C-alpha cells in the first residue's frame, strides 16, 4: 500500500509541475476541469428537470433568485446551463474519444505499413478532409428518425477521425525512421510490440493534443447541428439552448441572458481545448517552447 501511494502522489506532483511549466496547458486544463466538475454536480445542483416549462415566470432578467434569469418558456437559465454543459461535454467527449481512437488506429496502420495500405487509407483521409462536413451531416441527420445522445456522438465521431488519422500517420512515418525503431526491429520484436513499447510512449502527449483537438472539433460540429434544431430530442444541450433562444427571437427582444451564457461557455470550451492542444504540443516538441 505504501509504495503505490507515494508513487501516485509523485505522479500527481509531476503533472502539477507540468501544468505550471506550461501555462497554456495549465489554464486550459483548469477551465475544462471546472466545467467537468460543474457537469458532474448537475444532478446535485439541479435535482429537477430543467427543461420542464413554466416552472417559473418567463423572461426575468438575472437576479439573486435566478442567477442567469429565466427564458421565454419559463425555465431557469442557470439550471438549464448546468445540465446543458453536462450533455454537450458528454457528446463531445464520446465523439472525440471514438474519433481519436479510430483515427489513431487508421493513421498508425497507414504510416507503419506503408505501400498500398497507406495509399488507400491516405486517399480515404483526403476525401474526408476535403468534403464540407456540416451540409453532409445535416443531410444524414435529416434522415435519422431518433436523434439521441449516443446517435449524435456516433455521427460526430464518424467525421472527426480523419484529422487525428492524418496527424498520426505523419508522426508514425517520421518516427519510424528513427534509430530506436530500427534497433527494436533488430531485436526481433514483432510489429505490435514495437508499436506499443517503442513508439507509443513517445507519442502520449501528441495523442493527447490530437484528442483535445478532436473533442473541440466534435463540439463545434455538434453545436453546428444543434443550433438549427438537429440535436438530441430528449435532453438539453448548449447548442439546443441557442436554438430555442433564437427560435423565440431572444436577441431581438433583448433577452440577452438566454443567448450569451451558452455562447460564453462554448467559447471558453473551444479556447481551453485549443490551449490544451497547444500546451501538449509544446510538451511533445521541445523546439516549440519559448
Amino acid at each position, binding site marked *: 500500500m505504501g509504495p503505490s501511494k507515494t508513487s501516485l502522489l509523485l505522479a500527481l506532483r509531476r503533472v502539477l509541475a507540468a501544468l505550471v511549466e506550461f501555462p497554456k496547458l495549465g489554464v486550459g486544463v483548469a477551465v475544462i476541469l471546472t466545467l467537468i466538475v460543474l457537469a458532474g454536480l448537475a444532478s446535485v445542483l439541479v435535482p429537477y428537470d430543467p427543461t420542464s416549462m413554466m416552472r417559473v415566470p418567463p423572461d426575468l432578467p438575472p437576479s439573486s433568485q435566478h442567477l442567469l434569469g429565466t427564458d421565454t418558456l419559463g425555465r431557469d437559465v442557470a439550471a438549464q446551463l448546468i445540465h446543458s454543459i453536462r450533455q454537450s461535454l458528454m457528446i463531445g467527449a464520446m465523439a472525440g474519444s471514438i474519433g481519436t481512437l479510430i483515427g489513431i488506429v487508421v493513421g498508425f496502420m497507414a504510416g507503419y505499413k506503408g505501400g498500398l495500405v497507406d495509399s488507400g487509407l491516405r486517399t480515404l483521409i483526403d476525401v474526408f478532409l*476535403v468534403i*464540407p462536413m*456540416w*451540409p453532409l451531416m445535416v*443531410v444524414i441527420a435529416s*434522415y435519422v428518425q431518433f436523434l439521441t445522445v449516443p446517435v449524435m456522438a456516433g455521427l460526430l465521431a464518424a467525421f472527426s477521425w480523419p484529422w487525428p488519422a492524418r496527424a498520426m500517420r505523419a508522426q508514425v512515418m517520421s518516427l519510424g525512421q528513427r534509430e530506436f525503431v530500427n534497433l527494436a526491429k533488430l531485436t526481433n520484436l514483432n510489429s505490435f510490440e514495437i508499436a506499443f513499447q517503442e513508439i507509443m510512449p513517445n507519442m502520449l502527449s501528441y495523442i493527447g493534443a490530437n484528442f483535445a483537438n478532436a473533442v473541440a472539433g466534435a463540439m463545434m460540429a455538434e453545436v*453546428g447541428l444543434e443550433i438549427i434544431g438537429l440535436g438530441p430530442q430528449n435532453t438539453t444541450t448548449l447548442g439546443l439552448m441557442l436554438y430555442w433562444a433564437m427560435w423565440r427571437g431572444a*436577441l431581438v427582444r433583448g433577452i*440577452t441572458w438566454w443567448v450569451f451564457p451558452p455562447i460564453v461557455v462554448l467559447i471558453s470550451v473551444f479556447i481551453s481545448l485549443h490551449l490544451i492542444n497547444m500546451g501538449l504540443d509544446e510538451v511533445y516538441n521541445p523546439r516549440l517552447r519559448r
Partner: protein
Amino acid sequence: MISRAAALYLVRRLVLYVATFFAAAAVNFVIPRLIPGDPIRTLLVQMEQQGRTIPGGEDLVKIYRQRFGLDGDLFTQFVNYFARLLQGDLGFSIMAFPSTVQELVGKAIPWTIGLLSVTVLLSWGLGNLLGAFIGWRRGSKVDAALTSVCLFLSQIPYYFFALILIFLFAYMLPIFPAKGAYGYTKIMSFSLDFAIDVLYHSILPSLSILVVSLGGWMITMRSMIVGVLGEDYLKLAEAKGLKKNKILMGYALRNALLPQVTGLAMSLGFIVSGAMLTEIIFAYPGVGALMYDALGRLDYPLLQGILLIIIGAVLSANLLIDFLYPLVDPRVGYKGG
C-alpha cells in the same frame, strides 16, 4: 511551362476529385434507399393529415419514384440517376414544386459565392501579411498582444461572432441591418442604388467570417515565418546586403506562403460549413439559408441537391488551388507531390 512531374501530379489530383464527386453522388443515391419506407409518401400523408394537399400529389410521387425511386431495377435506377446528374438535372423540390432543385440552388449560390470569395481571399491575404509582419517582429509587445487577441478570436465559430455583431451593431447601435442581402423594398436590378444596398447588407455577414478567419491565418502564418527564420538562405540573403523588406517579402514570405496555400485548400470545407450557418443567422439568401428551409420542410431532393452542388464547388475550388500551386512552389512533383 509546367514540368512533366507537375503535370502528372495535377492529373492525379484531378482523378481524385472526379472519383470523390462520383462517390458522393453514389452515396447520395444510396442514402434514400437505405431508409425504410418512402419519405415522399410519408410526407404527403403528413400533409394530408394537416389538411394540406399538393395538387397532383400522386403524380409527384410517381415522378419522384421515376427519378430517384423504385421504378426499374437498381442498375437502371443508378444509370438514370447519373445520366440526369451529368445533364445537371437534380430533380424537383418538394416545398417549392414545380421549381427544380437546380433552379433554387442557382438563385441562391451567387449570394454564397459572392460572400465567400471576397471574404476568404481578403482574410487569407490580409491574415498572411499581418502574420508575416508580426512573425518578423517576434517577441515584441505588439506581437504578444496581437497574437493573444487573434488566438482568442480564431476559436470563435463564425456564427457566434455573427450573433455578437448583430447584438452590438444591429440592436445596441443600429448601424447595420440584421437580416437579408438587400432591403425588403428593393427590387433586384443592376443599379448603383441596389449595389450599394447589397454592399451595406453584406458588411456584418462578411465581417463575422472575415475577423475570425483573419485571426486564424495570422497565427498560422506567424508560426510559418518563425519556422523559416532559422533557414540558411535567409542568412545568405542578409549577407548579400539585401534590404530587410526585400528579405521578408521575397525570401521569407515566399517560402512561408507555401503551406498556407495548402492550408487554404484544406480549410475550404470548414469555411463553407461555417459560412452556411452564418447565412442562416443573417437570413442571407445563400445556399445555407436554403438548406435550412429545406430541412424544415424535409425537402430531401433539395437537401441532397444542395449537398452535391456544394461538394462539387469545394472540389472545384480545390482543383483550382492545385493548379495554381506549382506556380508558387517549383519543387512540386519532385518530392512526390
